[in-house]
């Protein structure tokens, strides 16, 4: 008997994406388009589910996954990595039976639990206790199973006091904790997990981590999708790298992560506006993201303590000026840890109506990063509509520098970020220090 828990053979998934619409620039054309609309809509809507063989190479088809094959042995933890749009979520959704493959076959041995989201099906009018039952049965538990674990779940969530209060009165933190606790008590041999599970305050996180370690010894097979290389390295024994729907299996997570990082470095050679690994409606598109120095010059290498400016150039094309646009920047370390998060809304900078092409600048007067390689993610949202989001829009490296202006360099092995601060020496309760 083999102990292969998950066997995936030649799995492919095809999506039909929105078709481009013809633009009418005459009045008569616009009128006739309105008349023809219902018919056209019907055809388009119908096409969402139908694929004609002749239309194979038309522009409206996207292969989210193409010929994916791999095996996971029982007890292994497989980390699935790849950029946005690489097909990670699609793969997880097929294995969870949420969506169906276009071709191929999957075989899984044992009970499968998939956690793509927590708190699915929560109803605001129902109490915490009632929602545990609703959410639990939705995840595949039986009522008896939940009865048995109810006390543990409530205890673990830390919201006992409010368990009979409607969930709409909960704070968002409480809701997340309750939702997570239900998911935590799922019984299954195979777990499919998306990183959205990383939630909660630090106290709760610690508790959860302990529970995870306890379970790690139980020999479950886990498929784990994450953007965080640190998490993948810490948790996974094997790696699977997805790239635009095609995948490669690596016997260790380490190899997969290394390969992925090299790949990311490569993609910088492609001009930003031609990159297709992006999310969003595309009403706004980032065309260039650069790190600038003192004199507005583009930099690949910067020095700790130096003044740097992150410049985001965008293009809204022929679209109308967008109001209330919120621009964001996240700087990641080379293992995927977030180090700096900011957006114009959070920083209180109002960005009014935008012209066709423009530039947003984020000035960092005193670069606090320690020596190493960094990636920048950029995004733009307007009225809850994600316009564009590109991971690793650009990379740069930091060399050791004099952050505190003392003429002394930090140790080479320093990690993390520097924070302006002061030291004080106190003797016998009396102050004895510099001004």
């Amino acid at each position, binding site marked *: 008997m083999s102990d292969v828990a998950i066997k995936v053979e030649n799995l492919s998934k095809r999506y039909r994406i929105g078709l481009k619409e013809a633009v009418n620039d005459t009045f008569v054309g616009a009128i006739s388009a309105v008349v023809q609309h219902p018919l056209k809509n019907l055809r388009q809507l119908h096409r969402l589910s139908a694929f004609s063989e002749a239309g194979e190479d038309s522009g409206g088809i996207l292969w989210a996954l193409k010929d994916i094959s791999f095996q996971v042995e029982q007890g292994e933890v497989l980390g699935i990595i790849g950029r946005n749009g690489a097909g990670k979520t699609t793969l997880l959704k097929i294995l969870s039976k949420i969506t169906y493959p276009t071709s191929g076959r999957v075989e899984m041995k044992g009970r499968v639990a998939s956690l793509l989201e927590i708190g699915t099906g929560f109803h605001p009018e129902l109490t915490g206790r009632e929602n545990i039952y609703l959410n639990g049965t939705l995840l595949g538990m039986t009522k008896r199973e939940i009865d048995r674990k109810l006390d543990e779940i409530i205890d673990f969530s830390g919201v006992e006091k409010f368990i009979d209060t409607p969930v709409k009165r909960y704070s968002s933190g409480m809701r997340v904790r309750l939702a997570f606790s239900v998911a935590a008590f799922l*019984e299954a041999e195979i777990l499919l997990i998306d990183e959205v599970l990383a939630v909660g305050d630090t106290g709760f996180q610690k508790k959860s981590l302990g529970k995870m370690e306890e379970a790690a010894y139980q020999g479950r097979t886990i498929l784990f999708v994450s953007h965080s290389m640190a998490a993948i390295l810490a948790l996974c024994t094997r790696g699977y790298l997805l790239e635009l729907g095609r995948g490669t299996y690596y016997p260790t997570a380490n190899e997969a992560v290394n390969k992925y990082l090299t790949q990311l470095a490569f993609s910088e050679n492609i001009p930003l506006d031609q990159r297709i690994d992006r999310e969003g409606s595309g009403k706004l598109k980032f065309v260039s993201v650069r790190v600038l120095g003192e004199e507005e010059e583009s930099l690949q290498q910067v020095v700790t303590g130096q003044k740097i400016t992150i410049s985001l150039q965008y293009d809204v094309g022929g679209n109308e000026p967008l109001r209330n646009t919120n621009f964001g920047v996240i700087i990641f370390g080379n293992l995927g840890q977030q180090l700096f998060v900011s957006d114009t809304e959070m920083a209180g900078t109002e960005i009014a109506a935008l012209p066709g092409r423009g530039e947003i600048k984020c000035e960092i007067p005193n670069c606090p990063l320690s020596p190493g390689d960094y990636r920048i993610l950029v995004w733009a949202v307007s009225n809850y509509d994600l316009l564009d989001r590109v991971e690793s829009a650009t990379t740069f490296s930091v060399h050791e520098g004099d952050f505190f202006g003392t003429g002394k360099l930090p140790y080479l092995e320093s990690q993390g970020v520097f924070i302006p601060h002061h030291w004080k020496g106190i003797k016998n309760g009396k102050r004895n220090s510099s001004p």
Partner: protein
Amino acid sequence: MVSVVDKKSPIEKDSLCRKGGAVPRIMMGNQVQDRQLDSELRTVIDADAREKLINWQELWRYRDLFYFLIWRDVKTRYAQSVLGIGWAIIQPVFSMVIFTIVFGNLAKVSSDGVPYAIFSYAALVPWTYFSSALSGATNSLVGSSSMITKVYFPRLVLPIAPVFGKLIDFGIAMVILAGFMFYFKIAPTIWALFLPYLVLLMILAASGIGMWLTAMSVQYRDIRYAMNLVITLLMYAAPVVYPASSVPENWRMIYAINPMVGVIEGFRASLLGTTAMPWDFILVGTISAMVFFFSGLIYFRRTEKIFADVV
């Protein structure tokens, strides 16, 4: 994959933008008690395989979900309303009052020899059930789109849960009907024993048409807007405000294709004794309800594979 960014809450949008440095926390239940049994379990996903029309085993495993979905519907339907479950009574009674004034008194529609009020109410009880079950089913999938795209469960439970959930309102309305019969001093006929079959027929019809509309509403949102039209149309195509006896003889069998014709006339005949039991209507209605049910089931099962992709 195709990422459709729809109207998410700001919080969700934030996590969408800021996801990245995530630390995974995976935990599992303490003990797997039925482990032996579970490891026998095999999941096979095959793009080319044909699935069973009804996977009883799976439906049985999710029976508790079915129960809790019904229970959620019932519990939340009248939450934070003053009259609460009273609305289950007010809806048909209010329609009865309007119909009695408009059709009974002004238009003087025939009511087969019983007071118009109870004549129309006896029809409104099954009719209100039928229309609310249909709209509940139609909205079920689109309303639960987050469930469909994030979790697997037999999709059939979504349209079927409201079909059973609304039976509670139906039961309450039936009690009121008994009260009216007592007030108007009308005794049920012996055929009242046949009522359970009519109720079954009503459920069958509601599930069948419900499955059709639900599956179509996922892909074509028009169905939701057209619902009110369809329900109004069906109401006038059923003997709610007028007796079936006013329909021309030649057309009656075509008329009876609407399964609610048999149900409503059956209700009146058995409870109020207006006419003899309309066996012909009931037979035609049963056949058409069966056709609706099985074709709806086939259509639903064939399209459910793409629900998560198009919803």
